[in-house]
């Protein structure tokens, strides 16, 4: 179903200017952050290249600014723009990684429970139900909090990104499992599945080769929406001091560090990373909204 792009894809895409702009913003942000070491004007987290004398410089267009730092510097003299690019890289990495993990677990559980039913279904869905009673951000928070108190501080700091991916990914699989299971239940009673069984195809082939492609649509939409959610969750955990360390901060950790200087009138260390986070999240949400409407025939 999704293997081939429908012929109206580009037409529908190009006739929605908001979506085109959002997609363009995502591409630019992903490229700029991925190649942060090449793009960024400074290397903000290398102590050899920063000078404390450059601290708290306002953005370049404000009087008293230094032209070397387009968006100003923070309290340690680090270039805000460069820190944002490096931070955005961590945010994107965690967001994409966590959603990939949620999707993987959710698909596996959803396919298994939907196709086999019985005890597997009952047990896994009860677990899912218990987890669903708690908002994902709370689960990720508790998971992270538990690890932070158990692991030695330096190990937690070094493994911050994989830990965040694990925490947010494990917190988000239930929704994927639910929609996959619901779609599989519909698909399983279709004639093509009966035909597959009749010609003696192995179960694993029926599930992966024949059913999976037919449940991918809603999964894709949910995954796109969840990227934005995961990025926000990561930023929030980092803001609460449970996420990335200050030696390699994500956007959320940058905002947290900056927010302590709000009352000294140093607004640029909060506003710019905040704006980047917001633009990133809104862009992902808008593209996801469009994909959902595009795949939903009833709204056309």
């Amino acid at each position, binding site marked *: 179903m999704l293997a081939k792009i429908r012929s109206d894809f580009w037409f529908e895409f190009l006739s929605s200017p908001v979506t085109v702009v959002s997609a363009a913003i995502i591409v630019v942000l992903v490229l700029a952050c991925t190649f942060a070491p090449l793009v960024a004007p400074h290397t903000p987290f290398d102590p050899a290249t920063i000078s404390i004398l450059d601290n708290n410089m306002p953005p370049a267009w404000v009087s008293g600014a230094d032209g070397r730092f387009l968006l100003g510097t923070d309290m340690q003299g680090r270039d805000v723009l460069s820190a944002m690019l490096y931070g955005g890289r961590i945010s994107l990495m965690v967001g994409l990684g966590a959603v990939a993990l949620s999707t993987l677990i959710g698909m596996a559980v959803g396919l298994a429970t939907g196709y086999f039913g019985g005890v597997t279904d009952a047990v896994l869905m009860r677990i899912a139900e218990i987890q669903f009673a708690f908002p994902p*951000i709370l689960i990720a928070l508790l998971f992270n909090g*538990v690890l932070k*108190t158990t692991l030695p501080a330096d190990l937690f700091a070094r493994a911050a990104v994989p830990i965040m991916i694990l925490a947010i990914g494990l917190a988000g699989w239930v929704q994927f499992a639910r929609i996959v299971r619901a779609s599989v239940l519909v698909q399983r009673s279709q004639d093509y599945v009966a035909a597959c069984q009749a010609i003696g195809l192995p179960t694993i082939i029926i599930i992966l080769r024949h059913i999976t492609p037919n449940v991918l649509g809603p999964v894709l939409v949910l995954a796109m929406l969840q990227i934005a959610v995961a990025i926000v969750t990561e930023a929030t955990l980092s*803001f609460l001091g449970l996420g990335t360390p200050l030696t390699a901060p994500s956007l959320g950790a940058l905002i947290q560090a900056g927010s302590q200087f709000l009352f000294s*009138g140093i607004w640029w260390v*909060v506003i710019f990373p905040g704006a980047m986070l917001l633009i990133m999240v809104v862009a992902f*949400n808008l593209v996801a909204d469009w994909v959902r409407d595009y795949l939903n025939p009833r709204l056309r």
Partner: protein
Amino acid sequence: MYFLVTRLVQASIVMLGVALVGFLVFQFIGDPVLALVGQETTIEDREALRERLGLNDPLLVQYARFVGNALQGDFGISYSFNRDVSEMIAERLPATIELVLLSGVLALALAIPAGIYTGIRRKGGLAQTIMALSVIGVSIPSFLLGILLILVFSVWLNWLPSFGRGDVGTFLGIRSSLFTLDGLSHALMPAAVLCLFQLGVILRLIRAEMLEVLRTDYIRFAWARGLPGRRVYMHHALKNTLVPVVTAIGLQLSSLFAFSIITEKVFQWPGMGSLLLHAIGQSDIPLLAAYLIFVGLVFTLSNLVVDAIYVAIDPRIRHGGR
């Protein structure tokens, strides 16, 4: 009735599961004895303390004791405050409840009319503006919104206090900071931050449901009968959007509790959320476990209330048919 009884049984099983998770997870983190003692405490004293806290008993015994005590509202002594956990929760609870209630009411009062309006006038300028704002509302991380509000209203304009809970007043025997002007001015920004996300979610859901319902045949038929627009929208359409909307509101109530952790951190609001963050920082296991179970209880109860409302509003469930 049968429906509600099944739900009640399910809810108790869920709560037992939550208690088990809380118990197991927190059984394996940190060492409470290390958190309680100083450097000069002897090994014998540590062992005695371990024995006294019941940390040497088999896991199953500890779990049974845990559930039994929890049922009586006894969650033990906080390791970091050396005080009764249930007492501390009771102390912090009102602050969180007033924040959650205020923002919940705000969200519903704004979301329902706006959702109905945007569902009916899909293409209008105002509706488009509301929808655009709602995208930002569900996208902006609440901590960022909180910081921005502090920057604008506290740092630049100096209109509103940036942290803490205001004076507490008494009205009809209830003590709450919502009954004083100072308290309200403290609660305004946190409540606004907390409600915005829920506002966006509920608004978008009501709009989507209205759009779905308005394209059905019976609505077209109602128009053909010449019924006034008000009656078609409110009586025929709105009523049939209620089931998913009530579900969502139930879920949103529980997420208000979760998100209040963030809001409380940003505005240094002395509620349960800041208590939880403190507990994580100090690996205060009894406090963590109590928080988890308490929140689980709130979520399970709100789900139960949602189920009860289903019975009231959906005849298909009331009469046991499908």
